[in-house]
């Protein structure tokens, strides 16, 4: 394995390409997401999306905030060569809802909210309460983990260069 500090900086782009690809998948191919969760209902863009364009001399950063905020500026940023660097998402499975922000360069998760659970009424209830919480955290983290693993395999395959990039380009240009 590469030196960790070198690998972190060298592969920041992989996380950002993942988020850019994921935005495209959210908009255009929800069916793919069903294969990662039997009870999958939807994955949606949440209340925050951050773009960064490093093709320009001084990196340009655009943040779009707010529920249901128009993403026209985001598409424009993609057209100018930016990538998604942070993405807030709403994940729906069965009747449950998770919301979180994923950062591309680190894959750190922030503002993660999980479905509400009942508070423990006694010390005896604590273990069940903790395990339920951990199950709910794990569900969203496993979903992201499997999605990222799928992306990596696609990214290093011939299909990425041969097919996927062309489709994403077409989506960017037509949006």
């Amino acid at each position: 394995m590469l030196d960790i500090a070198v690998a972190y900086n060298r592969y920041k782009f992989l996380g950002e390409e993942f988020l850019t690809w994921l935005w495209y998948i959210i908009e255009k191919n929800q069916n793919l997401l069903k294969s990662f969760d039997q009870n999958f209902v939807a994955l949606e863009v949440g209340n925050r999306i951050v773009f960064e364009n490093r093709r320009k001399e001084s990196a340009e950063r655009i943040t779009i905030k707010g529920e249901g905020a128009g993403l026209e500026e985001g598409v424009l940023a993609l057209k100018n060569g930016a990538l998604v660097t942070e993405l807030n998402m709403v994940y729906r499975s069965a009747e449950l809802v998770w919301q979180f922000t994923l950062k591309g360069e680190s894959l750190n998760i922030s503002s993660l909210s999980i479905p509400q659970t009942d508070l423990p009424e006694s010390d005896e209830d604590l273990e069940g309460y903790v395990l339920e919480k951990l199950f709910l955290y794990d569900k969203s983290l496993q979903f992201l983990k499997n999605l990222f693993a799928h992306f990596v395999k696609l990214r290093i395959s011939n299909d990425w260069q041969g097919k996927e990039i062309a489709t994403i380009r077409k989506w960017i240009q037509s949006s």
Partner: protein
Amino acid sequence: MSISSSKVSITQYNVQGKLNSQIIDTIADGLTKHTIADIDQQVLERAVGWTSFDKPFQPEFSGSSFVYGNYFVFSLRIDKKNIAAKILKKLYTIEAARRMSESGRDYLSKTEKKLVKDHVQNALCLRIPATPNIYDVVWNFEESSLWFFSNLKAANEELETLFSKSFRLSLLRIFPYTAADIYSNLKDSQRDELLNISPTQFVK
């Protein structure tokens, strides 16, 4: 940040290395040896250590109190006495003036100034209670994975250092390269591909 908070941040790790036997005892031992020390009414300004998830102010790791199903759940506690710079300056000025008056001089040497500063700082540390910051840790031993409930750089660095000292295992942070390597179950040829990829141009 706690498992129970309405919104949390999580940094994910892969645990490198294995404990071969008496796993729960070994972990309990590591947690106990590096339990947070109480620094209230002491001159120490800062303390870092493990504490119990359910009783963060009465740490206790006996038996299997930190075992929840397949997970080990405990917390990292960082206690710090926050001394306002302006208070420090005020008390230093008063004390320095007192010492000069006592000695009949109108100056203090460099060493004397340092002694006064240390004296004032220690006196404040004895009086000020430490502010605790608690970050939960969830360790899935079977899957060698660990969640740390904070994205703060300093807290993550403290976790990595203390974890290594306590259990003689190291933590590998999950970020795009390590996630690709660990999560994707790549064949050797795919791993070579990963080493050679370069950024995609989504627009021409």
